[in-house]
């Protein structure tokens, strides 16, 4: 399916050590342009650490992280990587709590990030149209003027996905988007991600197997910092090693 598409993201032999503990162990992964990939694995497998490495939060001890043709992400810091078009949703939903839902999206909208711009910036009608459209997509229209800290857990998850959309990234890294959601919300989120994937590449980390199945994409299983198995959901869930370390418990 993705065999002849351009490679968007390429992790090559990435290792990360925290005080002697190997969180990532020579991890390699290839993501094609326009692909959506699900990443699963037991707690502590290194899924979040992988996202930290891609987004510049953590520098790997060894290995390469290449974005697009030849951009080496390990040499860049977080804002520069965000600028390139990599957006991230955190495992714990992280929104700007004192701000309204609207303002959260406004701050996330792609645009000039420099103080000299934001000091004088006036909201344009183009910006409000885009925020309106995102509010509709993430189903938070009636909540636009609420303080985002007062939203429910699931609503915060969506707001954060909305902020991700507002950034207009090429690649979205989504860490556990459906944690704490009801079944109906989970289903809607799967739908939303599939929709997003029509125009953007996505890496989604999730423990919820029903959700992963609903996404219907290639799955990578991480274990102790490296890839244990990779393939369709049916392939990996029948892999005896995966059953042993993850699904069997």
């Amino acid at each position: 399916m993705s065999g002849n598409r351009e490679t968007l993201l390429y992790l090559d032999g990435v290792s990360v050590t925290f005080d002697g503990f190997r969180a990532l162990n020579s991890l390699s992964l290839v993501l094609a342009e326009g692909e959506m990939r699900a990443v699963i694995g037991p707690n502590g497998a290194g899924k979040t650490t992988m996202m930290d490495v891609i987004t510049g939060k953590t520098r790997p001890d060894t290995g390469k992280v290449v974005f697009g043709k030849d951009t080496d992400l390990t040499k860049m810091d977080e804002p520069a990587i965000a600028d390139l078009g990599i957006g991230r949703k955190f495992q714990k939903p992280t929104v700007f709590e004192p701000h309204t839902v609207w303002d959260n999206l406004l701050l996330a909208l792609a645009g000039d990030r420099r103080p000299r711009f934001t000091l004088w910036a006036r909201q344009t009608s183009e910006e409000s149209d885009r925020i309106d459209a995102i509010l509709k997509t993430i189903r938070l229209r009636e909540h636009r003027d609420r303080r985002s800290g007062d939203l429910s857990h699931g609503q915060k998850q969506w707001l954060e996905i909305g902020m991700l959309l507002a950034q207009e990234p090429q690649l979205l890294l989504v860490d556990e988007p459906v944690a704490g959601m009801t079944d109906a919300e989970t289903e809607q989120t799967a739908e939303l991600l599939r929709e997003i994937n029509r125009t953007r590449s996505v890496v989604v980390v999730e423990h919820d197997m029903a959700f992963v199945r609903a996404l219907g994409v290639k799955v990578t299983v991480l274990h102790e910092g490296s890839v244990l198995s990779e393939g369709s959901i049916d392939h990996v869930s029948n892999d005896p090693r995966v059953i042993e370390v993850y699904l069997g418990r």
Partner: protein
Amino acid sequence: MSPWTFRLCLVAVLGGAALLSVLNLALPETAAFHVPTYAISLAGKYLSFAMLALAVDLVWGFAGILTLGHAAFFALGGYAMGMYLMRQIGTRGVYGNAILPDFMVFLNYKELPWFWHGFDNPAFAIAMVILVPAVLALIFGWLAFRSRVSGVYLSIITQALTYALLLAFFRNDMGFGGNNGLTDFKDIFGIPLQESSTRCGMLIVTAIFLAAALLVARYLVTSRFGKVLIAVRDTESRTRFLGYRPERYKLFVWVLSAVIAGIGGALYVPQVGIINPGEFSPANSIESVIWVAVGGRGTLVGAVLGAVLVNLGKTVFTGALPELWLFALGALFILVTLLLPGGILGLLGRPPRRPKNVTPAAEPAE
């Protein structure tokens, strides 16, 4: 920081200064409502402190930088003004030296140190009031924010900064009058300092500067810049993943805040008539943080209110029981922290949006 408290604060600052001046100048000294000149200068001092408090609130309330060294910027602005006022004395000093201030003659200086040149020119002195705090803040902030020093560590180095300046300014060979500082001023811009009308004028000018600083600060914190700043305060790392560079935002507001503090110091010195190294003492910086906490952090208006009220209290208290003031201040701080996390302004209904140190910030660590 609702609009009405903000407007009320502007009116109170400007109207209060005008009213006190009228009551001082227009009424005979025997009249019941006459305001004595020393009270005018006292009010001017409070408003100068309010500028320091406003500066602290900008960085603490909106950028989460708990500064424990802001009095350093205030004192530097004060010294720049003090140097101008010293040069204004001219031959009227005890030693009658037209160039050298008294303390330099006393310490056997042969000529004016290079860094005193230009301070006889008011425009130059005013430029220094702004530039010296700004440049120091720029260097300090650039180093600190770029290497992501924050929290307690940052607080400690701000305290170290003011302490280092305290020690330096105490030294006689620094050329700033050592222990005694700069004093015995005669004129400002050629106008005799002791006149009641000059005192009232200085109070009104201070009120105008404070009002202007409030307006600038309010514009800043309600702009999109301010929204980013508040986001940085609560969840700094999250803003980075959105492509913002928090260090630039912090640096800008830090330097602006230092300038406001410096102007406050420059307004303070002619009204109290002296600037000495004691203004750099760590306790002063800590007091300014307490004013903000008492008035209400992150509200701008609260900073002004807190500075005026606490200093009014200090004037009354130190008159009656001087040795107990520090205990009273400490107790006030503890009470406010425990019982009034939103400060006085938090009491006035519509609680200010609670700063994040009350509910620990949700850091996107994992």
